[in-house]
């Protein structure tokens, strides 16, 4: 599974993308796995209300299932326009 990070999430974690093996059932489960890894992940995922998630390039939410998902992206609320 490819995990992508944007904006300050990318800066805190220190890389724009990585491939991981995970058996997490939901986005929330995946976040718990990542937080348990290292302090920088813990720092990036400390406040989920400040984060958004996209699954295979569609906005989704933390309760969503990861079944069949190939690309997960984490980022702060968008500031386009």
């Amino acid at each position, binding site marked *: 599974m490819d995990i*992508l990070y*944007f*904006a*300050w999430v990318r800066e805190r974690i220190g890389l724009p993308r990585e491939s991981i093996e995970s058996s997490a059932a939901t986005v929330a489960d995946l976040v718990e796995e990542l937080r348990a890894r290292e302090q920088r992940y813990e720092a990036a995922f400390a406040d989920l209300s400040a984060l958004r998630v*996209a699954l295979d*390039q*569609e*906005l989704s939410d933390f309760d969503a299932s990861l079944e069949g998902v190939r*690309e997960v*992206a984490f*980022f*702060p*609320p*968008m*500031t*386009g*326009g």
Partner: protein
Amino acid sequence: MQIRVQQAPFDLGAETEAFADAVDGAGAVVTFTGVVREADTGEMTAMEIEHYPGMTQKALEKIASEAMTRWDLADALVIHRHGRLEPGDRIMMVATASRHRKDAFEAAEYLMDYLKSRAPFWKKEILSGGEAEWVAAKDADEDALKRW
């Protein structure tokens, strides 16, 4: 319907002219242009716009398609830049054309409200002292979606 995501500047006058020209007879053409302005505090020397290449085009197409469905539009255009911009540079534009001015205005406002909060762009302000700050999403922008 045209969606363009690009690093290069765009020519506002030529885009506006071409868009209006292609929808002759639509009656009403509205454009919105976003320009990099000074930060509210501190002096900003540049703005860096990051985006999510695989998702951006699709997200903009979805937003514009929804606008074409909800309003009686002859056409819609969205251009959005990414990369490094300076104060005074144009970040993005939208244009809408309709038989009726109300549809053209509302659809343009809808596009802007959704671009602000649902298109995968993130702005960073580079200040004159060298510090950089990510622009925080505004509650007012999220609230603006509720009217649609």
